[in-house]
């Protein structure tokens, strides 16, 4: 750690973290916009029409990345919550707090686009299938965590209570992921997995993965932007403007 020349522990202070996050947002935003534009181009102009589903399958390019982000962000949120509980570190709780709304948004998007895909291919907007039901529970978990936090006035208690709820709920993520294997679901199995070759055309997979990375970078940018707002709300210090330097912050502290 000493040989990098960077004191990483500096960023365990919300003030330093606020500055660091602000510097990182533009980079992640630019990469995210670029990846999403490339992904949309490949998805709509390079990937061929599906033989069985026609062009309805193109919903996959927003549905699968949103569904992956909904599960991935939950795990990341639970990890920050766990670090927060273990080390009693305020920035970790703030990160968990900042991730929840974006996770909820992607969960809603996965369910919404899924129903847009279900109607033309299954003939139903919604079915009580294991995959759909467990994903709906994930949305309720996100909402529950956000509401629990906002219902407790004492910030330290709110941090710990919502962190415990987030950690307990992480059990649902493998259930969502493996639901298509464990139960006989109407929802199709994984098109792309780490252990097997993809069951889709190469350009389709490329478009989906590029969109996934784009959504990932978007999530990082948005989370960092929100964590800055959270820090500013919770710390209520002067000199949060762009021109604030570490020296100003140290002085204010």
């Amino acid at each position, binding site marked *: 750690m000493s040989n990098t020349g960077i004191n990483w522990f500096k960023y365990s202070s919300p003030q330093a973290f606020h500055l660091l996050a602000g510097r990182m947002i533009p980079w992640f935003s630019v990469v995210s916009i670029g990846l999403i534009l490339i992904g949309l181009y490949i998805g709509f102009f390079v990937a061929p029409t599906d033989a069985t589903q026609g*062009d309805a399958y193109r919903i996959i390019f927003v549905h699968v990345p949103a569904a992956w982000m909904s599960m991935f962000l939950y795990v990341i949120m639970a990890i920050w919550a766990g670090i927060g509980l273990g080390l009693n570190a305020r920035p970790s709780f703030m990160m968990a707090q900042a991730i929840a709304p974006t996770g909820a948004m992607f969960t809603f998007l996965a369910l919404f686009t899924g129903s847009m895909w279900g109607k033309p291919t299954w003939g139903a907007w919604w079915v009580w299938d294991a995959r759909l039901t467990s994903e709906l529970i994930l949305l309720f978990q996100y909402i529950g965590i956000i509401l629990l936090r906002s219902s407790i006035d004492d910030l330290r208690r709110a941090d710990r209570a919502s962190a415990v709820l987030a950690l307990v709920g992480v059990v649902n993520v493998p259930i969502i992921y493996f639901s298509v294997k464990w139960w006989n679901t109407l929802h199709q199995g994984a098109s792309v997995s780490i252990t097997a070759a993809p069951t889709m055309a190469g350009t389709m997979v490329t478009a989906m993965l590029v969109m996934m990375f784009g959504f990932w970078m978007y999530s990082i940018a948005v989370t960092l932007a929100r964590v800055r*707002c959270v820090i500013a709300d919770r710390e209520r210090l002067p*000199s949060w403007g762009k021109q604030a330097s570490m020296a100003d912050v140290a002085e204010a502290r």
Partner: protein
Amino acid sequence: MQWGSLSDFFAMGGYGLYVWTSFGAAALCMGGEVLLLWRRSAAAAGNHDGE
């Protein structure tokens, strides 16, 4: 490229309504989130300037 014309592209082989509603919802949700955060951070910066 498989699209003969612009109307072909928007029709999406008859699934245009479902495809464009999905992508529209994604654009609305993600764009809306960015807009809300923009306003929230602008409000936070404004408050601190006023103090």
